[in-house]
């Protein structure tokens, strides 16, 4: 596979983004970074397949992590990208890269609610792999029409959840793609956003530290929510590229469901 944007991304930005976000211990990873098949699939299914709501648009990426998708959306034609991320290491790292390379990216350190305080309206909100980690996803959805015209949501899907149902999972905030314990937000001080460590969790009997719950949504959950709110569902699917044959264990990550909703219909 060859993609000009991804090739340019590796040439110009990936090294700086890795070092700024992860620190000098990641320098070997930065030197060796390359586009893998799974990276390309994610790029295609999140950006190329949704280019109609990205190219030429002002984007707000809520829960942007390292900002890698923000950079790639900008490189793929977005007019501007605003990235919202609570983990300081990532939000500051992205800000540093954006400044160094003069990118039209604004990096804001903050949680999902801060988007309503920015005083700006966007064409598209992107929420990739984070809506299952906030305490109030339905209420949050109901407010989005004042923020943007379209929203793209991706969330992990487990096969044992009723299509309109929700299941709760409990886990620890240590490791990637996890949520937050909202009663311990002041303790998000670990360089990479952890709220606990293995010894605090297991050895010191502090087993609630950093523990959080997150949601697992059924395949039509946001379709039903959208209909209730008068939003139009433009897309609701699991991209073929992300389906992993033979993976059926419901406790394992399967793949991402992608929604595109039109919030303000003219």
């Amino acid at each position, binding site marked *: 596979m060859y993609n000009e944007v991804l090739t340019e991304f590796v040439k110009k930005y990936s090294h700086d983004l890795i070092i700024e976000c992860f620190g000098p*211990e*990641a320098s070997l990873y930065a030197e060796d970074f390359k586009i893998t098949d799974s990276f390309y699939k994610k790029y295609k299914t999140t950006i190329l397949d949704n280019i109609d709501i990205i190219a030429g648009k002002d984007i707000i990426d809520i829960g942007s992590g390292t900002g890698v998708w923000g950079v790639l959306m900008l490189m793929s034609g977005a007019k501007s990208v605003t990235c919202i991320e609570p983990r300081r290491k990532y939000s500051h790292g992205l800000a540093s890269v954006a400044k160094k390379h003069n990118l039209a990216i604004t990096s804001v350190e903050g949680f999902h609610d801060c988007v309503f305080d920015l005083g700006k309206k966007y064409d598209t909100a992107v929420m990739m792999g984070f809506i299952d980690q906030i305490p109030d996803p339905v209420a949050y959805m109901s407010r989005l029409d004042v923020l943007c015209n379209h929203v793209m949501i991706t969330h992990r899907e487990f096969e044992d959840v009723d299509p309109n149902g929700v299941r709760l999972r409990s886990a620890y905030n240590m490791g990637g793609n996890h949520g937050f314990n909202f009663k311990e937000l002041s303790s998000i001080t670990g360089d990479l956003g952890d709220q606990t460590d293995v010894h605090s969790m297991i050895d010191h009997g502090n087993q609630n530290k950093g523990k959080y719950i997150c949601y697992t949504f059924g395949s039509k959950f946001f379709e039903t929510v959208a209909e209730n709110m008068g939003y139009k569902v433009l897309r609701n699917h699991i991209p073929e590229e992300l389906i992993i044959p033979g993976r059926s264990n419901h406790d394992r990550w399967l793949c991402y469901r992608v929604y595109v909703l039109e919030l303000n219909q003219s």
Partner: protein
Amino acid sequence: MDQQSYLERLRFSLVLENQTRHDQIIPTMEIGLEAGHTHDVILDPDQPLNTFTFDETIHSRGTQKLQLHIKDQGKDSYKIGAVRIMDLRIHGFSVNTRLYESTYYPVYDAEYLLDNPTAPAEISGALLLGNRGKWEYTFETPVHDNESWRVSLV
């Protein structure tokens, strides 16, 4: 370096807590991938936590074993102090609960074994190492861009 000649290069950081008492001797150790080059691990007695950073080159997909050897000290081996593994990072990312995907193979003194014949030959998930022997951490490669690891830009 030719990127085609290896699967990936990994930078490890092992964080050890020195629990050696004043009447014991500080353990001497080496660490590395199974059947690969090893790196000396020398504890600073004045520091409660010691971090050792080293690089490894991975050539194949599949299961890898990182081994920490606590060296024999001859007749003084019974005096070897304890170390506790506090963390293991790859490219700066803690392996967190995966730290317990490890096995400790202690080597006991002959006298101790006479008194404790059922002393375990291996202990799963042990992080406090009080004898000479081997601690082995098992992991899968590639680590980069692996969906179950955190080491990734996405």
